[in-house]
């Protein structure tokens, strides 16, 4: 047993690619060693801007030998089949065994030295790494993310020799580019991390992230400020540095009249600086940058340089801002007719029209209580910032800039807020608008986008979702649920549909249900619970649906719920096995495809006066019940059914579940004491009908057949 160390030294790896590269590296090594039958312990992967590093603990000295028997084609099979089998096994025909007319291949592998296996693994990594973008350099044809310079590969204290396109493995690497550019000789995995640290390289990205997090916060705190947390920026800076050193810098407070988001984004996107706030939570004219060097002057020159660059950036930003705020949003909005939203969905101006109409509808229909004039104006101004210089520079500030300009131009706060919040929520966890005008605009905008793109056939496929329709759908659901908007999805989709567009209502509804599952999964709701509820909630009132789903899952998680589900499955299985769809009258309706929600009166269709009573008895399953357990179940159903129905109508789903819970005891006893398949045909039929009634009663609350056991 020895530890394996692999370091792939290259020129700077883009920060955004490092996390995936670490995972890929660990995965490939795990796959290769597993395929070769080489036992290993824990695999750790690290990255710095210049290296990908892997440490595999407790690698066996050699792989275990193996013997594998593979069954092949019949000896009489066509030659091509036999050849295929030979290719697959890597054997010659005379090595195959003929066992009763069938070829068998016995593939025996002797144990291989771990170093040989690891050398092959390294070759596979270097020649076949799944970089999203890779390149050639010099005269070679090897591809890597940037030029690859060295391979350190040690098993224990022994070199794992490998040579790939002129790059030979060795024990030497280099330290920090400036602090320690000379060679370092590595003894083994045991001294690697510490030797590198001594040469100003912290190999473990998590340690660098921690240094950045703590160092930056401490630096800000020492200046009486609070660092604006930005985890993505922490990770990015850790991917840009081998020896991260936070440095505090300042900028001219005059720039603070530029919108805060613009300053923060300028610092973040262009400079990768952290922003700071003062004790009142306002943006402070300070920043923290992360240098990759412990500068001899304590970072004074770096801080000064960083400040200068930022000042140039901020004066550009301020120039745009001052220009933008001069032009009334109404004026700017006129240019929207020149910007194409989508070739089949018209210009942005067309979209503005549709959103305004839809937002008005939401108010007129009473779904949202808001001032209709404010809603109309907010909708008309909402997209105007798309033609501003500021949004041209920072597209991610769309809406935010519009909000600032609206406020600066004296629009009412509700309108400025609605413009600012129109793209919210931008995903799970983002703030959901709650002000009425904001809700109307944010919901109408997303509905128009979702419905419009579906109507022109631009649906998301696989990982491709160029118009962010998943996000739009999720946003719609979040807005509806968080604000308890009582409306059927069908009505909303119809209202948003383009009259001349294709009919995509059913598809959109299905898409929304899928999104609901994803959204609810994050709060721990199982997708099968949603299916169970969707089956009985036809109009797609999301608020109702979610309440019902939550109550259902809570119930299923209780002992009563779990047992009731088991009993339900048992009943459903028996009914299925017996192909029992109910008494003659009922089954004919089922065959006609009329959904048996149980709410229709089965007697409506019965014309014959004399038969009415008999059918009623038969349908209830009560006629001639002779065992106590049967009678008890009937009584329980008589009691629970109306309770459950009333509770469902009143949207008290907890009460509906409680009503179902009361069935658990009687149904369990029924199964314990009653034989359904009695030899007496009448008894059998009666009991099957009773099970049917039980199943339907449960289904009225939720379709339990969709719930996974």
């Amino acid at each position, binding site marked *: 047993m020895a530890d394996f160390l692999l370091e792939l030294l290259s*020129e*700077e790896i*883009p*920060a*955004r690619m490092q996390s995936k590269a670490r995972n890929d590296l660990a995965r490939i090594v795990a796959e290769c060693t597993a395929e070769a039958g080489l036992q290993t312990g824990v695999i750790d992967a690290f990255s710095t*801007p210049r290296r990908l590093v892997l440490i595999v603990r407790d690698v066996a000295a050699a792989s275990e030998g193996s013997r594998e028997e593979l069954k092949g084609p019949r000896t009489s099979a066509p030659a091509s089949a036999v050849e295929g089998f030979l290719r697959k096994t890597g054997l010659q025909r005379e090595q195959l065994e003929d066992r009763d007319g069938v070829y068998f291949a016995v593939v025996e592998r002797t144990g291989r030295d771990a170093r040989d296996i690891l050398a092959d693994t390294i070759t596979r990594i270097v020649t076949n790494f799944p970089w999203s*973008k*890779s*390149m*050639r*350099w*010099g*005269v070679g*044809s090897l591809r890597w*993310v*940037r*030029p690859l*310079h060295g391979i350190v590969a040690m098993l224990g204290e022994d070199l794992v020799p490998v040579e790939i396109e002129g790059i030979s493995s060795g024990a030497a690497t280099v330290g920090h*580019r*400036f*602090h320690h550019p000379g060679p370092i000789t590595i003894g083994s995995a045991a001294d690697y991390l510490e030797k590198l640290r001594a040469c100003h390289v912290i190999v473990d990205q998590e340690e660098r992230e921690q240094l950045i997090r703590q160092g930056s916060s401490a630096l800000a705190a020492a200046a009486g400020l609070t660092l604006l947390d930005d985890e993505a920026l922490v990770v990015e800076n850790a991917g*840009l*540095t081998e020896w991260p050193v936070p440095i505090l810098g300042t900028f001219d407070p005059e720039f603070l009249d530029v919108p805060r988001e613009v300053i923060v984004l300028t610092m973040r996107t262009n*400079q990768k*600086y952290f922003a700071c706030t003062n004790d009142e939570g306002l943006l402070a004219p300070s920043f923290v*940058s992360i*240098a*990759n*060097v412990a*500068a*001899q*002057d304590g970072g*004074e*020159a*770096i801080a*000064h*340089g*960083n400040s*200068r*660059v*930022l*000042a*140039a950036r901020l*004066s*550009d930003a301020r120039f745009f801002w001052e220009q933008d705020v001069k032009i009334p949003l109404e004026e700017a909005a006129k240019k929207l007719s020149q910007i194409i939203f989508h070739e089949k969905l018209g210009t942005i101006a067309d979209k503005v029209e549709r959103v305004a109409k839809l937002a008005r509808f939401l108010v007129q229909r009473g779904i949202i209580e808001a001032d209709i004039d404010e809603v109309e104006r907010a909708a008309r101004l909402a997209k105007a910032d798309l033609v501003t210089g500021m949004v041209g520079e920072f597209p991610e500030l769309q809406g935010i800039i519009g909000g600032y300009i609206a406020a600066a131009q004296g629009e009412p706060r509700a309108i400025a807020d609605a413009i600012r919040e129109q793209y919210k929520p931008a995903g799970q966890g983002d703030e959901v608008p709650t002000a009425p005008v904001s809700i109307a605009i944010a919901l109408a905008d997303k509905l128009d986008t979702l419905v419009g793109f579906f109507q022109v056939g631009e649906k998301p496929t696989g990982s491709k979702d160029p118009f962010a329709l998943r996000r739009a759908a999720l946003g719609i659901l979040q807005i509806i649920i968080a604000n308890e908007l009582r409306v059927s999805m069908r009505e909303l989709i119809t209202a948003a549909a383009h009259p001349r567009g294709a009919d995509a209502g059913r598809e959109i509804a299905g898409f929304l249900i899928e999104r609901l599952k994803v959204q609810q999964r994050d709060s721990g709701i199982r997708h099968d619970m949603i299916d169970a509820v969707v089956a009985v909630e036809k109009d797609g009132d999301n608020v109702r649906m979610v309440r019902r789903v939550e109550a259902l899952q809570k119930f299923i998680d209780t002992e009563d719920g779990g047992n009731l589900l088991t009993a339900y499955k048992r009943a459903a299985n028996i009914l299925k096995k017996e192909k029992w769809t109910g008494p003659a009258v009922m089954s004919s309706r089922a065959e006609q495809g009329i959904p048996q929600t149980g709410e229709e009166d089965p007697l409506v269709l019965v014309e014959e006066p004399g038969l009415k009573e008999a059918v009623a008895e038969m349908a209830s399953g009560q006629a001639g019940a002779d065992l106590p357990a049967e009678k008890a179940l009937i009584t329980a159903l008589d009691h629970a059914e109306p309770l459950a129905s009333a509770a469902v109508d009143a949207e008290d789903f907890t009460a509906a579940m409680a009503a179902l819970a009361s069935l658990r005891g009687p149904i369990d006893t029924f199964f314990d004491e009653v034989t359904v398949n009695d030899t007496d045909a009448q008894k059998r039929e009666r009991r099957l009908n009773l099970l049917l009634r039980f199943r339907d009663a449960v289904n009225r609350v939720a379709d339990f057949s969709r719930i996974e056991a």
Partner: protein
Amino acid sequence: MHPPKRAEATYAGRFVLSLSFQDLILTLHHYWSRQGCVILQPYDMQVGAGTFHPATVLRALGPDSWRAAYVQPCRRPTDGRYGENPNRLGHYYQYQVVLKPSPDSLQELYLGSLEEIGIDPLKHDIRFVEDDWESPTLGAWGLGWEVWCDGMEVTQFTYFQQVGGFECRPVTGELTYGLERLAMYIQGVENVFDLRFNDVGVTYRDIFLENEREGSEYNFEVANTDRLFEAFRDAVAECELCIERRLPIPAYEQAIAASHVFNMLQARGVISVTERQAYIGRVRDLAKAACGAWLERAA
């Protein structure tokens, strides 16, 4: 020959070594000359970037080794600001270095050039930040970085993968220094026009402010667009003629000419968003054809 002496100036409250604009160029010339580069003079055509010089584009194609360094004046009509913006110019200089095949020590060589012009990497924060390069008009792309010095982009560093739609084998390493920015940084000035051009009192303002004013006015307001459209058509026709006659270098020059005319038309605001793509595609086709002819002739 000896490298020019550095003048001293105050920077961040202390004395540092600081090169004038022309000494910056001369220092880079000496440095890259020592690395075996041919020190070329600027190409005598209007281009938007140092990359357009045939010493980069055409020499990046084919199997032959090549090392060159040169200053290239660049014209970006849309970036002109009438001399009123301290950071933007419609005409400026790039220092361009190409090394083919790219040596393993390219980063070290580059960092050596920074030290040579007075940037101490243990005092400043030098970083290689991902920035992939693409030139739609040249049908070229490569991977590399923008090099940051204390948060400022001072150089574009690229390993060419394709030029004119053809694979680069071997690969050329390209370094493009933004000379004005670098000089502003070294000299510690906030306005490009305040740059010391030499050490005897001539500033960038003295030489170029009037150029920027007149250039901006011409590019944005005066240039006759009918004649520009005509010039574009002429360049296209000349390029096609040269390709027909198997003259790749003149053909390439006409592609460059078309590209500059296109930039002028852009500045005049007479090309719509949809047309823009078509024009870029037209120039790319010319550049590709010239590159193809160059490769054929070399083969």
